[in-house]
């Protein structure tokens, strides 16, 4: 009996611990940030957080939102296991009653279900058609879900347009496509394959690889035999891209190399430095830099670089902008918790960002647009330099494409 008593006391403690309602300081507005702090996605998570943090600090420095300070509430969304995603939503929206949620990668569709149960605006960068399809099931229910980048399919099409527009004479029409075996990699890989075929190219090799491949000898030897004019690698992670490039450069073949999104993780240019010169890639919803198109943008870039001592990585700027867009809507509506109105305003008016107005489409997807373009980069002098913005596909002011040094 004593045991059982001891037992139940432990239990009651736990119970009390759990449902003790969390007291929210009345003078702050909580903002949820479910971003991986551990696990395989922690790297990209860090980049998104930099943008979000910057925005919220700005707002707080300028007197807060409706006179109240914003308070960041983080949640480690680990590896996006279903119950973790669900848990994040219920913790932030249900428990902490946050006024909005700002994420990066967030679960490729699971997140739509999890946050659709609530009304607080939720900004994610899933970049996947699957997430959009879920939204389409019930737009009324999921009206508070916003995608801050275009889907993989569209990004891939943009990549293709850029690659075709390069001021460079392809010696042949053979392409090799390498992509990861997750939804992003496949979505982009498939789209590229289609587009290339449709334009009379031969996809000489299509390799789908798991994460964590660091030995490229086999593929590279095949590439040497194929002698493609173009190699596209779509791996949203630093390590694989770097090892690929390093091993490719040991005996390069005359091919343009495009890393797609994979060029944006900072470690790629950090590790490769000048040896990466000539490689091209893209950043969705990006702010061209280091030389920005206008002072407003330039000021932003300078501030970011000042804060974090490196150029702007993928996601940082758009995550920043999403916070600002939400904050703007709130100030217009005048109540952070009038979710209906806030969402309506965001959907209706979008936001006037550094590059002009951005607007979400009927699927709440921030399609590639002049206000938040897909930026195509080339590594020049060991740093990313914008060469195109899309849409519409226009060469970036004062930029020029350099033929990669390894091409003879």
């Amino acid at each position, binding site marked *: 009996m004593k045991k059982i008593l001891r037992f139940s006391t432990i239990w009651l403690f736990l119970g009390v611990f759990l449902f003790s309602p969390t007291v929210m300081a009345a003078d702050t507005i909580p903002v949820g940030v479910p971003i991986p702090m*551990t696990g395989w996605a922690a790297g990209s998570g860090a980049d998104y957080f930099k943008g979000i943090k910057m925005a919220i600090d700005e707002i707080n420095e300028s007197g807060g939102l409706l006179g109240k300070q914003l308070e960041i509430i983080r949640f480690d969304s680990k590896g996006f296991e279903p119950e973790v995603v669900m848990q994040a939503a219920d913790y932030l929206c249900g428990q902490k009653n946050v006024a909005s949620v700002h994420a990066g990668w967030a679960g490729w569709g699971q997140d739509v279900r999890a946050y659709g149960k609530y009304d607080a605006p939720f900004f994610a960068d899933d970049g996947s058609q699957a997430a959009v399809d879920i939204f389409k099931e019930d737009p009324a229910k999921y009206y508070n879900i916003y995608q801050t980048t275009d889907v993989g399919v569209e990004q891939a099409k943009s990549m293709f347009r850029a690659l075709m527009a390069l001021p460079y004479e392809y010696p042949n029409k053979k392409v090799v496509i390498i992509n990861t075996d997750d939804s992003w990699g496949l979505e982009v890989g498939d789209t590229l394959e289609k587009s290339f075929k449709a334009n009379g190219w031969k996809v000489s090799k299509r390799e789908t690889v798991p994460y964590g491949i660091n*030995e490229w000898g*086999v593929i590279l030897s095949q590439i040497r035999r194929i002698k493609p004019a173009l190699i596209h690698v779509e791996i949203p992670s630093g*390590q694989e891209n770097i090892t690929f490039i390093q091993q490719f450069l040991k005996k390069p073949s005359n091919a343009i190399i495009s890393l797609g999104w994979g060029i944006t993780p900072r470690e790629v240019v950090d590790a490769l430095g000048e040896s990466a010169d000539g490689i091209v890639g893209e950043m969705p919803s990006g702010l061209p830099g280091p030389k920005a198109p206008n002072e407003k943008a330039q000021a932003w870039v300078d501030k970011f670089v000042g804060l974090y001592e490196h150029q702007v990585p993928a996601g940082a700027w758009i995550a920043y902008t999403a916070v600002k867009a939400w904050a703007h809507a709130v100030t217009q509506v005048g109540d952070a918790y009038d979710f209906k109105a806030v969402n309506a305003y965001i959907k209706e008016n979008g936001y006037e960002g550094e590059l002009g107005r951005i607007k979400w489409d009927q699927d709440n997807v921030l399609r590639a647009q002049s206000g938040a373009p897909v930026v195509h980069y080339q590594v020049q002098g060991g740093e990313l330099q914008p060469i195109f913005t899309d849409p519409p596909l226009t060469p970036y002011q004062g930029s020029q494409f350099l033929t990669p040094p390894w091409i003879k």
Partner: protein
Amino acid sequence: MFSEDTILLFYEITDVIIAGLSTGSVYALMAVGMTLVYGVTKAFNFAYGDFFNMGGYFAWILIVGLGLEFGGYPVILLIVMPLLFAVGYGLEKLLVAPLRKRKDWENKVMMMTLGLALFLTSLYMVVFGVRMKSLPPILEGTLEVGQLVFSYQDIMIFVMSISGILIFAWMLNNTRIGMAVRAVAQNPVGATIVGIPKERIFATTFAISTVMVGFGGILLSQKWFINPNSGGIIMVKAWVVTALGGMGSIRGGLYAAFIIGMLEAFVGWMFGMSYGIIALFVLLLATLVLRPQGLRGKGE
């Protein structure tokens, strides 16, 4: 007499074989420490892969963190390897030895090291950040034989890992401590009877294996970079190699390492890289069903 395509194909196959060999040598280096510990102490170490990264991080601290230029990698190894030895020895005494007295301690050690792995991985993330770290290459440049390309880096890795293993094997067979280690592996009771201090040998073995895998970590981090998350997969690779070779059998481990290296290279070449891991486990399962002891049972 040969069409150009056949010649290119020949080169390609040679490339695949080379890739297989270099991966094999790496796996050998990874596996040898693990099989040693299992053979001698019967303890299974799940944190093995994180010791691999530990080697890398120590080197990184010296080279990048402290900006040590003097002497390059030889000096780094000279500093890091004793450090790893100390860490291994300490951890064994502190964490593994106490468990050894308990009932079904093998399982308890497995779980403890699993926790240790979780701890180290996340600790790396907290301390060194979630981004991977890179080390300067040992050697630059490539050696070209006709169509074939050998990077000096790869040659270096191959040579150093193989010689590392050979030195280790030599010590095992020809030094007093080495003989003691083998004695404990073959017959712990007998070892005690002749007055070999078993506990010290256990700790030493654990430390040696830490040094071996840490050495591998340094060697490969300058090609693959240091990734705080990679510990788990490295451990599994080493595990598969050891199991296939027969846990406790160093020679078996060597065979297995190169077999697997080749398998991965050829499967990747013929069917695509994503089939590597499946092929790996199919091979493993088949082997274990036919030979529950692995390729070469019992430690020699």
